[in-house]
């Protein structure tokens, strides 16, 4: 936990902050990780992906796709869930948590793009998606959703910047279009979250039947809707500690009501599907896949579904956080299970990420945390001055 200045008013910013040990160590560690990741990325650009990773022809995708891309996008879902609640459903009281949620989503998507620039074999051609189209390809949809939704998030985020820079005209112009932007953003998010699941419908024979379903896009979307508020809870809890603000427990508790609904539908479809296809027995075979499925479903779906249904949990900041972590853990497990563990491979080939793969992932996370910290100190992210607009 970072301890910072004592009793400074909310509006006093970085200038007046006295140095503390944590205040030096934490940013230092973040910058160190980023620098290390940068060096590793340079080795990759010089000598190829094989030079820094354990990826191989049987495991064409590894840690970066499973975590940075699939988990990254899912964990950025707080932005679209919160924006939809505030702007479309008109739940005005969620407005105080809107800006941090949008910033988290925007940074999350930027992190995805950076990871893609390491993982893609020809990163300099990422823009080819714009000129070469194959509309049969789910990856085509994924690529376009990344591009367009990152742009939408940039617009949704920009009023904080314009407000800080005192560019009132730019701010008002964006705000005029905020409703169409949010509608577009929610649509793109839905398409993107679901299309990441659709990617794996092309491997019906390779993907373990515990996870393969023609409804994979729906499953990915439902889990994204559940993990969005969970991420808002996590992010609000951390920033309330780091930036010494009160936690809006009532607000995040109210937003958390979405979670059990999404998880319930997910569980119903999942179990119903496994019963209908008579594949439920796979869960109790006692093998790795079966045990992972049970852990994911019981720990990451059923447990938080019950917990978030209890008003007592939604009123307690500690229980809210614990339950949110269960949802997040469940979604992370699910993405790894679908994209890495659950896919059958040729005999005799294995994969475990190399330390340099972890360095890239950690470096990107460090960059995101650093950017959030800088934004939180320098942009009107929290408090009453964030009211009344996007």
């Amino acid at each position, binding site marked *: 936990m970072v301890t910072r200045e004592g009793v400074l008013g909310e509006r006093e910013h970085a200038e007046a902050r006295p140095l503390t040990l944590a205040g030096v160590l934490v940013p230092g560690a973040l910058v160190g990780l980023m620098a290390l990741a940068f060096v590793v990325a340079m080795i990759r650009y010089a000598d190829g992906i094989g030079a820094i990773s354990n990826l191989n*022809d049987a495991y064409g995708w590894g840690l970066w796709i499973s975590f940075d891309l699939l988990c990254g996008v899912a964990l950025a879902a707080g932005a679209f869930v919160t924006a939809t609640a505030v702007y479309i459903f008109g739940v005005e009281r969620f407005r105080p948590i809107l800006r941090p949620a949008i910033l988290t989503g925007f940074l999350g998507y930027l992190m995805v793009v950076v990871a893609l620039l390491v993982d893609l074999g020809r990163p300099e051609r990422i823009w080819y998606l714009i000129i070469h189209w194959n509309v049969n390809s789910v990856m085509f949809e994924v690529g376009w959703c990344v591009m367009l939704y990152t742009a939408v998030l940039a617009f949704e985020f920009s009023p904080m910047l314009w407000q800080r820079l005192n560019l009132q005209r730019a701010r008002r112009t964006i705000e005029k279009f905020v409703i169409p932007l949010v509608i577009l953003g929610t649509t793109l998010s839905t398409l993107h979250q679901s299309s990441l699941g659709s990617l794996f419908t092309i491997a019906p024979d390779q993907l373990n039947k515990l996870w393969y379903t023609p409804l994979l896009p729906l499953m990915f979307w439902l889990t994204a809707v559940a993990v969005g508020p969970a991420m808002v809870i996590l992010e609000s809890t951390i920033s309330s500690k780091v930036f010494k603000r009160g936690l809006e427990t009532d607000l995040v508790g109210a937003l958390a009501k979405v979670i059990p609904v999404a998880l319930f539908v997910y569980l119903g479809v999942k179990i119903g599907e496994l019963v209908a296809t008579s594949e439920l027995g796979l869960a109790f075979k006692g093998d790795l896949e079966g045990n992972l499925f049970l852990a994911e479903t019981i720990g990451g779906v059923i447990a938080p579904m019950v917990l978030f249904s209890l008003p007592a949990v939604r009123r307690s900041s500690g229980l809210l956080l614990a339950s949110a972590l269960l949802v997040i853990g469940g979604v992370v497990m699910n993405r790894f299970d679908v994209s890495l563990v659950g896919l059958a491979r040729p005999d005799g080939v294995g994969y475990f990420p190399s330390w340099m793969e972890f360095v890239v992932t950690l470096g990107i996370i460090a960059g995101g945390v650093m950017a959030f910290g800088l934004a939180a100190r320098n942009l009107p992210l929290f408090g009453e001055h964030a009211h009344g607009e996007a």
Partner: protein
Amino acid sequence: MSFAMLFDATKCTACRGCQVACKQWNDLPGEVTKHTGSYTHPAQLSADTWLLIEFHEIQNGDEFTWGFRRKACMHCVEPACASACPVGALKKTNEGPVVYNEDRCIGCRYCMLACPFDVPTFTWDRGLMEGAVIRKCKFCVDRLGSGLDPACAKTCPPGALKFGERDELIAEAEARIQAEPAKYVPHVYGKEEAGGTSILYLSHVPFQELGLPTLGNQPVQQRSEQIMEKATPTVALGMLLGLGGLYWVVKRRNQMAAKKATTAGHRDKEGS
């Protein structure tokens, strides 16, 4: 008119002549490998090995049999890789070969996941300057264009690999089964599998024993193409209209509530 190849596992002697011919024609370097305990060598397809003879040791009761399989791109009639490629770098040609355009590839490696036969490989050792690419058998399109047979089929000493027209090869394969029903598994692998392939197999042992996957007769991309054709546009349009409508309804309801509140003469904390 579409070209194909028929591989008859009962005739293959595993001399690896095809494997060498492939390397020679395509100018592929040898690989430094490790002994794995299997005669299959190298152990896997790679960017430098596009064709591999797999040695399967098959135990049937007290009987021991070899099962040799030519592993390379199957040149599917409806290739999953081509469906998966976001930029259309992989294409099925009318003549049969599935060809790859390296000038388009962005290196996302989705084709490697999509292929039900685990065929496409990647140049893991290439940095930005060399430019990483996907590699796989290209059915010797550069030979076909000059009227030559593919290098592997041209080489095969025991005549286990035959190049020809797909329909004719299927007819021939079925004729072989009929002529010697005791010798063959009564099925031509690749005639229907995954929507049909341009590499066809005859075998004396079950095809799974040769390492060929058990697949349905529909292309594996059937579901994902349905999603792209129907679900995606429907969801996109539905969401845009639905969210727009929802916004309007919620706003209108709030306005009405506010109006009602003011006309009723008491103030409400509506719309803070």
